[in-house]
């Protein structure tokens, strides 16, 4: 990547983020504002893809809510992301695991 861009971004890149791999079960805390109240909302899910782009690095996290799959793409260096904690790791032999979207039973696919 261009060293000039890297120099500018280095001021904003977080250094306390754990090394996230595909197949990690993570718990991510996001700072949200509901009206006047501010709070941190936690959500768990499996990382199904990671896109490395310096400060614009994103991860796609998949979880199931009320029987429906929901995917969220987070910019992990965003100031709204307060914490990322790795709960468990599943051994995966792919860079992106989009095949789990068709999984009837997730445990078999992973």
């Amino acid at each position, binding site marked *: 990547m261009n060293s000039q861009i890297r120099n500018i971004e280095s001021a904003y890149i977080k250094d306390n983020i754990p090394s996230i791999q595909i197949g990690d079960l993570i718990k991510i805390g996001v700072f949200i504002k509901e009206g006047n109240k501010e709070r941190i909302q936690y959500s768990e899910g499996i990382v199904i893809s990671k896109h490395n782009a310096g400060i614009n690095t994103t991860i796609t996290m998949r979880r199931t*809510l009320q029987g*429906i799959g*929901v995917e*969220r*793409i987070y*910019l992990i260096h*965003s100031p709204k992301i307060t914490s990322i904690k790795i709960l468990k790791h599943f051994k995966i032999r792919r860079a992106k695991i989009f095949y789990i*979207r068709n999984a009837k039973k997730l445990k078999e696919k992973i």
Partner: protein
Amino acid sequence: MIQIRTVLKVLDNSGPKTARCIGILGPPKKFATVGDKIVVAAEGKVYHGIVACCKVEKKRPDGSFVRIDQNGVILVESNGKPVGNRVFGVLSDRVKQPEILSLGRVKTI
């Protein structure tokens, strides 16, 4: 990205299980997304509907995206009043109409 002929899942207890989009309301455009009002046909009748969740990812102001595994719609009458009285499943947070959010136990993501 809901367009004409898209079949959506009905997320309330108004009766029909699926509805087909037959038009998009508002300024002329080809695709509707979450929170937009569309015209749907369900079980031989025509209703309006509010798109509740969409399979194509939707960007949020903080740079994150949300993608839900189904295309869902909530049926409403022409005046905006919901046809059913209970809503199921997961809605997007762009559904802000108070008549729908007051239908109890609504999960928005």
